[in-house]
């Protein structure tokens, strides 16, 4: 037989020898991490990779502060085992940056949504996922998509307004 070691296979094998148990793609970058597969994605992001945009609020998928995207779909990273992640993870850091805001982030700044801001990474990720799937959401659509994200400061009126602004911008209005 012809022996071939494709670069990708070789690379993965070398990482395996280094002891990684989980391969994770976050914001376009590949990471090889040696953690228990049952560790929640949130804590891999925060404590292992130093990606702290996703926040810890409840640990049981009740508050939404930890919301990230897996292949564009909003998920609660506190309740997803890292070993079960298939697909690319996007955090708030990968959505946009201060110098290059995503339309949702721009709308959040324009409406000055945040008070303490601790829930807003999750709110923004939930809104971005909603608009990816439904570019012209009704009030009911917005309520349905956003009600799993708790805001203790009570910024809901501004969140609603910002989602609508982002939707109209993304639709070219």
């Amino acid at each position: 037989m012809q022996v071939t070691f494709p670069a990708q296979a070789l690379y993965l094998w070398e990482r395996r020898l280094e002891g990684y148990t989980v391969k994770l793609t976050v914001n376009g970058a590949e990471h090889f991490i040696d953690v228990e597969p049952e560790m929640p994605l949130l804590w891999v992001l925060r404590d292992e990779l130093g990606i702290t945009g996703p926040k810890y609020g409840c640990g049981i998928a009740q508050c939404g502060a930890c919301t990230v995207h897996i292949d564009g779909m909003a998920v609660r990273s506190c309740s997803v085992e890292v070993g079960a992640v298939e697909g690319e993870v996007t955090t708030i850091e990968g959505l946009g940056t201060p110098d290059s805001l995503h339309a949702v982030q721009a709308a959040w700044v324009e409406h000055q949504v945040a008070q303490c801001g601790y829930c807003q990474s999750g709110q923004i990720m939930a809104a971005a996922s909603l608009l990816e799937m439904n570019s012209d959401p009704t009030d009911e659509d917005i309520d349905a998509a956003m009600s799993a994200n708790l805001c203790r400061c009570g910024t809901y009126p501004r969140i609603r307004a910002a989602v609508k602004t982002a939707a109209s911008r993304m639709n070219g209005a």
Partner: protein
Amino acid sequence: MGRLKTIGRRAFLVGSAAVVGGVAFGFYLYKKPVENPLLEDLAEGAAALTPYVRVDADGVTLITPRADKGQGAYSVQAAMIAEELDVELDQIRVDPGVPSPAYWNTALAAEAVPFAATDQGAMATAARGTVGAVMKIMGMQITGGSSTVADGFEKLRIAGAVARETLKAAAAQKTGVAVARLRTQGGAVILPDGREIPYQELASEASQIAPVTEVALRQPAQWRLIGKPMLRVDMVAKSTGTLDYGIDARLDGMVHAAVVLNPRQGGALNSFDASAAKGMRGVKKIVPVTGGVGVIADNTWRAFQAAAAVECDWGPAVFAPEMADHWAELEQAFDTDPDSQGRDDGDVENALGETPLTAEYRAPYLAHAPLEPINAVVLIKDGRVDVWTGTQVPRFTQNNVAAIAGVEPEQVHIHAQMMGGSFGHRLEDEVARRCTELAMEMQGVPVKLTFSREQDFGHDYLRPAAIARMRGAVAEGTVKTLDLAVSAPSVLASQMGERQGMAMPGPDSSISQALWDQPYGIENYRVTAHRARNMAPVSSWRSVGASQNAFFHEGFLSELITAAGGDQLDQRIALCTDDVSRRVLQTVGDMSNWGRDLGPNRGRGVAFCMSFGTPVAEVVEVTSTPEGIRIDNVFVATDVGRVIDPVNFENLVQGGVVFGLGHAMNCEITIADGGIEQTNFHEYEGMRMYQCPRITVKALEQNSHIRGIGEPPVPPAAPALASAIFDATGVRLREMPFNKFVDFV
């Protein structure tokens, strides 16, 4: 310049004539100059102009000593300084500074005196000055009581003006151009020929000359920033996940810790068995801490897992173990001597007659539950302690950490962190204390302690549970008599006494806060406060005593007005004795088009509360649907004298309404076996997006005093909602949370 000098004296020496006129106690300490905390670690060539402004080679830093827990304190403090300093908000850095007695909070102290906020008489003013003196002596750098703007409005603008004029004087010295020919703009002194000298280039000169302290503050018509919408300094960072909260702090070599504390809150740890936890992956150390066990690991989740695997033998409950016992304690307190009787107008006993209207109202314990669980990082190395934590009481934390670490307070360096909410929880510092205990075991290594959500809920210091018993009488279509007795545990005794070790003699005005000082002219009007004991430890919760008391007062007042056959708004306006408050009530009536036909199954309610000197009136409109009550609209009118940033102001008011409504709808903390039963947000939900009404806000600016807005929108929300539900359904709600009695959509 006499008048201007007076402004300066008032701002920096506090209390002005009232102090000179009536206060001997603490007068010397008053005069004693306060050490400037910025001089300690100032680099060569940098000039500390005042404790609020730092100019060095890197630029201008505004020191914002009041903590930011989401209310926009940094931004609003920066704006007040920048207004006079002539810098733009995107030219500066904001630094919460270091704990210092120079940052005493005089506005908060003024709230602690037994005079109504509407009382500007000589006695009341003098007393406020006294308390300010005491608080300054004690060096209480506290963020609370909605006092940031009230406290800073003069101080911070003067700080900015002093800095500006001193920089101009430095520029004059440097260039030989007369000060009168210089102006300032955009962080620079502008010479007559248009040449600009950035402030940082003047830092060295400015440090060599005496500061110019006789300064004129600008008139409102000249303001560039104050009163206009401004982009909060933290808004972009908070919209991009790039703002680091305390929980995001990361230091080289840092380890992660968790605690498991006795579920019987405050109870002891008898013994523990860590054999199962010890071998778990990443665990570095397991040690006892006060009331529990701490686990130090290499990752937060691993620390949580290992903490859960520690087997503990817990000591008994330290307060009444069951909720029924707590209600009984509150009931029994009515039979004890009053803690205070803030008001006794007319002849209540006679006026009540044979058949007064009576009602008992109840409010449950509540948790603060900011979305960021409490956390701290502590590093102890070579006799120096560094603490990174979000705190509203940095000076207390400094002292408490020092005592645990066995060092002098000066060796404890607090690095104030942005907070993911507080609602009063960050007036406590238990997380910094526990983290210091852990860091003592890990000398030289930074230890981050994160409370799990369950530990945060289970060991919060609560909003008091309380009971009000009320009697009243009506005649001639109006309210003639209101006799209100309230029973609640003392927040001051628990929070400042038990946990901060301060002597708290005398009555606790928070028990009857927003009861005795409401601007209503009811002929026979009595407010009696009783102190309940043996309750759970309690704390300041957004709006403190007003949070439950407005529900009691306004709820029963609504019942009396109904009994009198009056209109809820008209009667309140008629009873109101304060012009500012009356305008607020009239305004909310206009905004909501009070009296218009709402259609079938709908109802409206109004409530008013003066708290922290800020009058707020709210109208709530609801619909009774087959699925339950839906809250449609809320209208809010208030008057804080001067709105610094209308955008942030509206956001805070709307948030306060959501906070008040959400807790009234479905939140309570209950006690079983000496501990808090609720563990997470599925048992303590508050309001969610789909339940959020339209909230319309109007701010008047006719109040002669500058007031805060962080807390005052909370108290009227619950009674206005209860009144609206009664109007729509006929169901009278006398106990929170309301979802025990009605469903919400």
